[in-house]
């Protein structure tokens, strides 16, 4: 509604991407235009997901900073609290957050169902909904397969990333 009234950002993404059929941007211009068109959906998803992640990180930092033994030890050695915060507490508090972000990358794609329908963007979520409403089973199977593949891939990569960040986790043991 804000977009409709102020006319800063488009609400129909597909329409915005090709200027209503007038232009066919290619290369860099296409991606810049894409970025501009995707601003509102990104803002929406950010606002929706922000609170929970912020809460998670905050709780972790408080826990690590105030009550973990290495933080107390560092403080006892007289290391400035700023350094304790960034070098020890923050780094360790980031670990569960990375898990969450990884799961987000895997599962936030399901938020795209709503975003794509609202902003009329013909993506894979919109395609699944279309397949479901038209009872097009082969189409639905293909989109489900793609979603499943994507989720598996992201979770797979996440395992490696986690092992890289946390030295306590070893691969292949």
């Amino acid at each position, binding site marked *: 509604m804000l977009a*409709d009234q102020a006319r800063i950002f488009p609400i129909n993404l597909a329409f915005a991407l090709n200027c209503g059929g007038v232009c066919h941007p290619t290369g860099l211009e296409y991606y810049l235009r894409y970025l501009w068109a995707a601003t509102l959906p990104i803002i929406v998803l950010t606002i929706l997901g922000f609170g929970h992640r912020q809460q998670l990180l905050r709780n972790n930092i408080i826990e690590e900073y105030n009550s973990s033994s290495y933080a107390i030890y560092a403080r006892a050695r007289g290391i400035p609290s700023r350094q304790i915060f960034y070098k020890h507490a923050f780094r360790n508090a980031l670990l569960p957050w990375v898990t969450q972000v990884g799961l987000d990358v895997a*599962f936030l794609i399901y938020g795209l*169902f709503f975003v794509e329908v609202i902003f009329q963007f013909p993506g894979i979520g919109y395609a*699944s909904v279309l397949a*479901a409403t038209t*009872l097009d089973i082969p189409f639905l199977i293909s989109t*489900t397969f793609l979603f*499943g593949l994507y989720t598996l891939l992201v979770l797979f990569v996440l395992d490696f990333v986690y092992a890289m960040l946390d030295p306590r986790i070893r691969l292949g043991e």
Partner: protein
Amino acid sequence: MSSLSFVKSVLRRRDAIVGLAIILFFALIALLAPLIAPFSNAYNPKAYFVASPDSPPAWARIFPPYSSLPPNIVLPPTPSYQLFKVPSAIQYWQVLDPVNSPVIKYSQSGPVGVLPPISGAFVSYDPTSGSELVNLTGDSTTPVPLYLYHEFGYNYQPPDYFYAQLLVKPITVQGASLAIFLFVQNEKGVYPVALFADSGAQTYLESLPNLGSGYLNYFATNTQSTLNKGAWNFISAITTASAYMPLVYLNKSVNPLLVSQTLFSEKGEYKVGELILVIPHGKYTIALQQTDFKFQIFGKIYGLLGTDANGADVWSEFVTGTRLALGIGFGASAITMAIGVLLGLVAGFFGGFVDSALIFLFDFLLLLPGLILLIDLDTIFTITHAVPNKALLITLLLGFLGFAGVSRIVRSQVLSLKTRTYVQAAQVMGASNFYIVRSHILKHTAGTIIALVTYIVPGLVIADAGLDFLGIGIINTPTWGNMLNNLLNQATASNGYLWWISLSVGLSIIALSVGFYLFGTAIQEEFSRFS
């Protein structure tokens, strides 16, 4: 440690009271839905056009942009008169023959020039058919007009739509020709909105010096407008077919697309009704049978929550939507809780291989992408017609897919309770597993379970609304999701983005979530203090 004191301690908290009040408010709406919703399904075309489409709610008049919008105006105003099943309905007519009153001799004797009582033989009620009878006798060679009309004051912006209709059956027409107009009269003049005439009257009207060509065009175009004797004639004027109105042919200054805007552009007294024009040649006798005249201006404000793009009552949609949302929410959560608590108890209490197997099942279900699974299953079960009712199908799907989270929480509770000394004491004393689960473990997880219900219900309500919003949930029935989905295509700047729909549904979902959250948190905190 009675349950009564627990309830008391929960109800002493202000957040619990607020949460409970919100929940009860929506539960009350859902329970009373058949009583407080005027239309059981506002998406049925029968429920369309209770007022103009996209009308804001009536209370929006307190805001300046909406202050001069017209409400629904229906004439006659009382329902019994509208149905025309009571003889006194006749008295609602006002009768006038302004030009030639002396030449008309009414069948009832009375002083010349003075209008007779309306309920007399001049216009009377026919108890056998429930219709009005109009009797006119006289001797004249000049046309005799008889006006029957209703009066009302109109002090609003012009409306978008109105209609006027009447059924007329000429029984006796002797020595005269007959034309019947429906008209709207304001201070500027009389606007004929419908006209039926027999052949003699058509010839007469077409020979009028000023308007003849207009009537000629009208009768040439509208071949349906011939008055048939001895049969019922449906005379109707409706703005969606305003090109057929005679005023468009007679008065070239009226834009056929803006008839109601032109007619009701003035504020003040209006007359709407029927003009019976008798064109006699000597002695004449006219007897007409007719139903009561119906007239409605479709209001541009309506009811508690206005109307949608079909002119259907949004309050009805909201109420039926609330009923469905809460029904699905509580139904699905009942299934979820039943399965989830049972499996959680089993997994936590027995441990070992059972625990491992069930934990694998829970983790599998939790990691499975929920929405796409829901969409797939929904589509498959819809195609196979496995479940007769879409609402039931969604309830079952949401119920059977959502128990994993509940199970995990219950299981972890049971695991910690199992090591408590009183449980171990009961085991040593030889109590059966069933007894321990029932009177020790279940009793101490009750608070968590109740709190879980309150957390789960809004989630399920939102899931259902999401499915409906995507168009793969319940169709052809007003639900919150469907209302939001329609909004997507219908909200524009010109109708204020339909704020009366978006705000009512959006705020309801938020309020319901907050209410359940407050109540659930209060229960959980009180319970942990309690035990």
